């Protein structure tokens, strides 16, 4: 699709914090018209109608039909991604979709959505925004240039304090899909991006808050080349005011440590290099919530306009759901 002077007509489904964030960024992007917002909460809709002029506010995805939409952002809770995305494709509401991570609540549903995207869609993308963080982009670049020689092993973690001290039995952690879906998926996606296919060999899941919630996970993986990796994921860790994702990668010629803020490369030769965000051209046209969100949305919109393939596509992101599924299976076998 190449626009000729007209704007891309985009709708956002689900106006929680991620929906508001994407709607805001879309509204400052040139070539985008924020055409409609879809939200099921009555009160939120009343306020949205007062606040937005010229944007349709609807309560049901099907009401987005006939709006001649070019793209839809799905930022609802993970459990509703499958029905919402299916509807958008099957009712021919739009052919270009952006879905907040994770693609679906399990691998089977993710595969079905890939099939629908293949049959009814054009550009499809999942919001693994850390791929757009300058430190992780630099790490990917260095790995591509084999800066550390042959890769031997890695350790990865994703921690936050989001539910540290939560009341026992609280239902909120489970309603967010558990720590693997909510936070762990980011580090799994980065590992798949860096190292390719991964198979889970052993796993342990722990419920700290109760009520069946997944609050902590540790698991071991291997890739087809024999690279081994250890993951630790938890949202009940002290002193992680903001969620943090980190990888420590060992190669035959050195070690790389990378997280959201900094990348350090220590080579066996004694050479050591450090890059902070400051060193990696982190500014964007409009800053909201972090520069990676702007880059992610700009990339998706430009890809729709130019009709290019994007990464992470639904297919790529479905592999994260596959790894999470394997973690759950292995954990169950270990119980």
């Amino acid at each position, binding site marked *: 699709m190449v626009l000729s002077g007209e704007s891309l007509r985009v709708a956002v489904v689900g106006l*929680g914090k991620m929906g508001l964030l994407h709607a805001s960024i879309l509204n400052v992007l040139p070539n985008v018209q924020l055409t409609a917002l879809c939200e099921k909460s009555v009160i939120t809709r009343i306020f949205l109608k007062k606040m937005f002029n010229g944007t349709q506010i609807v309560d049901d995805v099907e009401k987005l039909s006939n709006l001649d939409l070019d793209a839809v952002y799905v930022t609802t809770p993970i459990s509703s991604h499958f029905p919402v995305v299916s509807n958008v494709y099957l009712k021919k509401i739009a052919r270009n979709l952006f879905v907040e991570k994770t693609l679906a609540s399990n691998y089977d549903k993710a595969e079905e959505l890939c099939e629908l995207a293949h049959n009814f869609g054009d550009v499809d993308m999942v919001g693994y925004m850390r791929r757009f963080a300058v430190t992780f982009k630099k790490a990917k670049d260095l790995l591509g240039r084999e800066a550390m020689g042959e890769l031997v092993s890695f350790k990865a973690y994703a921690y936050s304090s989001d539910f540290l001290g939560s009341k026992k039995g609280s239902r909120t952690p489970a309603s967010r899909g558990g720590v693997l879906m909510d936070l762990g998926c980011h580090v799994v996606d980065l590992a798949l991006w860096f190292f390719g296919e991964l198979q889970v060999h052993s796993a342990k899941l722990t419920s700290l808050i109760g009520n069946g919630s997944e609050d902590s996970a540790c698991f071991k993986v291997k890739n087809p080349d024999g690279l081994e990796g250890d993951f630790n994921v938890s949202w009940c860790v002290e002193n992680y005011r903001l969620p943090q994702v980190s990888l420590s990668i060992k190669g035959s010629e050195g070690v790389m440590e990378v997280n959201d803020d900094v990348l350090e490369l220590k080579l066996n030769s004694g050479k050591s290099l450090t890059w902070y965000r*400051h060193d990696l051209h982190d500014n964007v046209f409009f*800053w909201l919530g972090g520069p990676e969100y702007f880059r992610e949305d700009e990339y998706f919109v430009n890809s729709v306009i130019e009709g290019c393939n994007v990464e992470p596509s639904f297919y790529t992101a479905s592999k994260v759901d596959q790894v999470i599924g394997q973690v759950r299976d292995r954990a169950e076998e270990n119980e």
Partner: protein
Amino acid sequence: MSEKREKFLLVGDNPFHAISHLSQERTRIRDDRLTYPEYAADLVVISLENGANGFMFSVSETTLSILRIIRGRGEIERLSLHAIVPYAFEYVRLATQVGGIPGLAKKFAKEIALSGNMRAVAMGLKGVLRADPVSLMKTYLSYEISRIKSSAGKKANLQSVMLHQVITDMALALNLDWLFKSHVDFMLDLGITPGFNTGNFAYLVKKLKELSIDLCKITIAVPFNKVGFQMCPSREECEKTLADIPDDNVVAISVLAAGYLAPSEAIDYIATLPNIKGIAVGVSKEKHANETFKLLKEKLG
């Protein structure tokens, strides 16, 4: 010839909330005492003795405790207070824990009802009944101001109340013009300088001019540093906008680029900029408080 006005040399509160924009790892290995209000209050008072004249803070239980301690020591009247609302991080965390924005709204309504601030309760009720976002915003602002005043005391000099970066920039992106106008009008009516904390300085100034908001009556807190860290879309664009505004109404934040720059080189850069009304710097040790504010007083004061 224009009159030289005393600049605001403000103690920033990021270290007291365990925030580092350079590296989160750094906050984990920092002295735990930083998040203790007594220790933080000591640092504010030491900074005051070395040239600081104000405190810029997000309104949270931690900073309100710091204000209570400084008030208890009889030092509160020496400080100009620059509040940032809401303390977005805490609200995002709460939203995560209580089930999103609807859960957060319920919890917040309960807090206002229990606060005993009848003006806020009445405005809030009106806001809910009429689905009026302006009334709800005023309710919220009244509630936060009453929290500050009950901690800092009636004699405290609440100089400005700024909207947090996330709110300012979201409103900017979504063209919520009513939010800018109502914040400015409401604060001016209360005799408080309205302010905006932003990561999109050039974009904000353009919007405020479009809305005919008098830039001389407001304060804008915005990152300014030698390496252009968090200066969007670019350092050059932010400098150009700064040079074009009609008055000195900018408080420079992130001047050390989150610890990436040494204080002397960071301050040398700020000293070259026009229209800077003040500067906010976080300090995490007594030595930092001494050195940084002495330097600021010498070069900018």
